[in-house]
């Protein structure tokens, strides 16, 4: 498998997270790929199949500025390790790729999540560089929620 998942400026900006989960990769994988489970934590999902090329949508209530639909297509699927899909939101002209990478750890799974391909103009506050943002554990998440 190629490892050319490096974000280049032409591919746009990347948002990257890392989480340590206290659960085995197989279990995390189920939550990432079972439509019923996806609906419980991510968004209600229509048509997901674990096959490269499969098109599916996430659908939820419309939101001001968003019709509630995310158009997706599976780009890469490597069971218990990696899931990559196109994540396109028409109304907001967001044409991105979401990548979940699972690595077993002593206590469970390290889940990396990247969303890449944001256009620079969709990032009003910062210019230029690629920002990686890694968080171990949930405290920073809580703090960000407070700061927001």
């Amino acid at each position, binding site marked *: 498998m190629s490892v050319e998942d490096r974000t280049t400026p032409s591919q746009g900006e990347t*948002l990257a*997270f890392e989480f340590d989960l206290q*659960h085995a990769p197989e279990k995390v994988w189920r939550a990432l790929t079972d439509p019923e*489970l996806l609906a419980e934590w991510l968004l209600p999902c229509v048509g997901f199949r674990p096959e490269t090329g499969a098109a599916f949508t996430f659908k939820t209530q419309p939101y001001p500025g968003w019709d509630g639909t995310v158009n997706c297509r599976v780009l890469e699927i490597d069971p218990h390790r990696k899931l990559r899909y196109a994540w396109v939101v028409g109304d907001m002209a967001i044409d991105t790729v979401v990548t979940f990478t699972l690595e077993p750890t002593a206590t469970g799974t390290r889940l990396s999540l990247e969303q890449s391909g944001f256009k620079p103009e969709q990032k009003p*506050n*910062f210019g230029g560089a690629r920002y*990686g*943002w890694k968080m171990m554990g949930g405290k920073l998440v809580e703090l960000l929620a407070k700061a927001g």
Partner: protein
Amino acid sequence: MQPAAPDELFKALGDPTRRALFERLVSEGEQTVRALTDHAGISQPAVSKHLGVLKSAGLVRDRPEGRQVHYSADPKGLEPLVGWMKLYGAFWLERIGRLERLLERMDE
């Protein structure tokens, strides 16, 4: 104080030792350098140096008292990140929180 540039924030939080110090201040509240050193397992000068980086990134405040310096986390320091996080990150943070709660409920 002017908010730090985002790349300075990322750099400050990119180091696991600094992130651990910051997270400790977030969870435990104000701490002296000595208390942080006892917990960090590195020398006091190293802890002070890391705290200096966090301070110039606007993530911590210091308060000298006698011979001790007390440090506390400053959530406002994260604001330059929040602009970005609000748009694209908040969604995932909230969803991963839900994923963690779902995993707790799921059978093995």
